């Protein structure tokens, strides 16, 4: 799936592939130690540049404050 910015597509694909593999072969099997951290850091830096360019950073910050959704009990 495309990223918000075309220049992050390759990083996103590498991260998604890493995560999906980890989810199926580790997480669901009971090994919940986080993985793919290095590529996630690179990918996140890339999308945050695009998020700031599109002025979505304040919208996201406001949403995190207004609706933190920090526990599974959130929502309806």
């Amino acid at each position: 799936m495309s990223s918000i910015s075309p220049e992050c597509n390759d990083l996103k694909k590498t991260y998604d592939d890493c995560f999906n593999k980890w989810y199926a072969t580790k997480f669901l099997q009971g090994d919940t130690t986080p993985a793919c951290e290095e590529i996630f850091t690179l990918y996140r830096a890339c999308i945050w540049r695009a998020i700031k360019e599109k002025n979505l950073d304040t919208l996201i910050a406001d949403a995190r404050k207004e609706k933190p959704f920090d526990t599974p009990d959130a929502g309806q």
Partner: protein
Amino acid sequence: MKFTENQYLFSHPFSTITSANFQKYPNEHSSHVLSVDILSRSVDPQTSILRSERLVSVKQSAPALLRRLLPIPEIAYFREVSFLDPRAKSFKAISSNLSMRAIVDVEETCELIPQQGAEGTETVFRQRAEVSALGALSYAARLVEEAAVASFNANSWKGRMGLEAVVDKIVKEAEGFQQTVEELEAGLRDMEAGLKEGLEAGIEGLRKGSVGL
């Protein structure tokens, strides 16, 4: 304020459905979803619950009348936070609009619940949405709410079809993988047999005083 709810049953286990759900986009029914990005992701060390925060951009499909009344952007952004509990086997995602917050508040909750069906493990997909437009008594607010609910219901069906398509892809991939594993195993067995034969021939050769390898 308006509510709407949809529920679908998938004849696949929780693990397959949640794997498919994480890689749901793109699919042939999701041309309205333009991008999906992961903003943050963490595993709670105490509970093992996986929390993901995503940014989704969607092409708007507001009716022309509404477009004339309100400044509706072509692309709308949503933030989705999901919780996956591997021990309780539960998944819940809550989405809310980042765009047009001065006009409308849309909150959607999706849940995946495993259940035992007649033919094995099934997964129920439950989706609810709550739409509240600002100025709840005005004509425009009613139009906004109705349009949001109509588009939600249309996209909900597309989402259901899309998830099913991705599940099929994943199941086929898993079958392909299984086939590859079986082929590899057969290859290894042949190699082992070959090696054993070679080794035996070698030993036989050594015994006879010649190098048979």
